């Protein structure tokens, strides 16, 4: 395919505008296979952002706590899985034990952090999650060592390699593990959605999200609900850790991905599960496309800040996010 490039007449400004507003689209049209590849990459990383954000949303909805420790929970879950496997535990037993560890973590957090701080201002609970973060970093390093580890994939029967499609006048490569991640993540989200809308505990979770005090007054046990949501967030963290770890490696550096979840949450709304998913996908897609087509204009590295600029715009114009809780107010 050949598109006639129209040179703007002379002016540097016109050329600059051309580079920003027209050239990237020309490139997209010229190489649709590259566009498709970029979109796919964007969707995959967006999905991982969405998973992290999902962990935040679960806890924020049920306890009003912005859980700074969600990032380290991802690392801790993945480390537990790999660490147990390296210690000679069979892969699936290690997976089961990692799930048990996440449950114990939820239980301990509820007992030692949330329960003593009931009724304290939100900011104090937020600071407490910093404490959990640093505790988990230290504890994780003592138990598993500080070296990066390689995520186990083959023993868990996660596929390897890539599928290559020769289409769109070129080729598009899809990593099989990314496809597996997409399938498992969708199943998990669907499971959570059904759990929330249909079950007795799910209803109680939504009730707690609406009003702690009213939930207490009808006999809903906040302690029980908190353990359940922290456990759910732990499971989400484990799944995120497995797939993120398979893309890079498992190390404490992963903890900073928690910060990437922040723009996702601002975009999607802190209390909306669909918001977390759509927000994650938008940020992932946007990041990759901007980096690929517009990045060269500013010397690359846009993916470090693009998400935050989007978040800033949202804070200015739609602070409740795309799918934030409908604010019900009777007048």
């Amino acid at each position, binding site marked *: 395919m050949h598109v006639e490039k129209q040179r703007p007449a002379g002016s540097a400004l016109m050329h600059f505008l051309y580079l920003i507003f027209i050239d990237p689209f020309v490139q997209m049209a010229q190489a649709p296979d590259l566009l498709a590849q970029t979109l796919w990459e964007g969707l995959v990383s967006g999905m991982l952002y969405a998973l992290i954000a999902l962990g935040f949303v679960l806890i924020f909805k049920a306890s009003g706590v912005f859980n700074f420790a969600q990032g380290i929970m991802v690392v801790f879950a993945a480390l537990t899985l790999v660490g147990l496997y390296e210690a000679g535990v069979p892969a699936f037993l290690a997976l089961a034990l990692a799930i048990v560890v996440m449950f114990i973590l939820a239980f301990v957090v509820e007992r030692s952090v949330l329960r003593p701080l009931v009724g304290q201002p939100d900011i104090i609970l937020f600071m407490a999650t910093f404490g959990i973060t640093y505790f988990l970093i230290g504890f994780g390093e003592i138990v598993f060592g500080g070296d990066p580890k390689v995520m186990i994939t083959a023993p868990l029967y996660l596929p390897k390699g890539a599928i290559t499609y020769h289409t769109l006048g070129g080729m598009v490569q899809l990593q099989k593990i990314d496809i597996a991640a997409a399938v498992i993540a969708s199943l998990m989200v669907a499971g959570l959605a059904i759990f929330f809308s249909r079950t*007795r505990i799910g209803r109680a979770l939504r009730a707690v999200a609406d009003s702690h005090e009213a939930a207490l*007054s009808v006999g809903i046990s906040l302690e029980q609900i908190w353990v359940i949501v922290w456990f759910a967030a732990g499971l989400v963290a484990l799944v995120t850790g497995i797939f993120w770890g398979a893309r890079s490696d498992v190390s404490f550096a992963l903890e900073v991905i928690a910060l990437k979840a922040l723009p996702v949450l601002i975009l999607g709304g802190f209390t909306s599960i669909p918001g977390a998913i759509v927000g994650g996908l938008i940020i992932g897609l946007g990041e990759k496309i901007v980096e690929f087509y517009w990045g060269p204009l500013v010397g690359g590295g846009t993916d470090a800040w693009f998400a935050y600029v989007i978040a800033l715009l949202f804070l200015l114009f739609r602070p409740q996010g795309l799918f934030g809780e409908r604010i019900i107010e009777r007048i």
Partner: protein
Amino acid sequence: MNLTADSQDQIRVPSIAQGERILSVNNIEVIYNRVILVLKGVSLEVTRGGIVALLGANGAGKTTTLKAISNLLQAGRGEVTKGTIEFEGQQVQHLSPNELVRRGCIQVMEGRMCFGHLTIEENLLTGAFTRRDGQAAIKADIEKVYAYFPRLRERRASLAGYTSGGEQQMCAIGRALMSKPKMILLDEPSMGLAPQVVEEIFEIVRDLNAREGVSFLLAEQNTNMALRYARYGYILENGRVVMDGDAQALSQNADVKEFYLGVAEGKRKSFREGKHYRRRKRWLA
């Protein structure tokens, strides 16, 4: 206003096992934030199958008393520091609200506090959280609640946040009923509602009391209304019970008439006399 005729209604309220106490509060003291003394020794009793009114002005300690009984104080950083609370003969001040609901004592909080983002029916279902007797029994009880509150059936699929104040109050009472309570602590059911709706809700309370045998402890500022439906009343002032007695006796007491019912004896009193009166009333404590 003819209070005597109204209070004669009381005689028709049927009673179940008159005399046996379901709840007794003995000389409790409540402190918020470790420094603010709110209740300075409140004692009261509710007989099984009774309706007892807890009266008093803003800030007298009505809500705090109810929350102390249902153990919701902790969430508001309050604490019972002295005295005991007995429900069905057992001390309950150390139980969690969850356990208390399981035993049959539930609070309907001031300002309704329905779950706005849940539908009316889902709200009712949350009330059955502590129950373990199966879907069929819960379903049957939802029908029973709809029979008491037909308007809730019409609005069953609407989000509670979009329903009217009266409907929310009905939803809150219905939700409490779903826990199969023996006793409901009802906090200010008349708040912000039209007089007709208040009447409707009090009629249902009386009905529930008569037909389901639910005992009520009713905190109200609407003294006139509360004394018409209750059998016994306590008047709180500044965290103390300053007066108690049969509803009928209270509604005829000159001080209560003056201060809470707004009916003066004889000619209108001047503000100066009012002050004097207020001072004298304090001595009743």
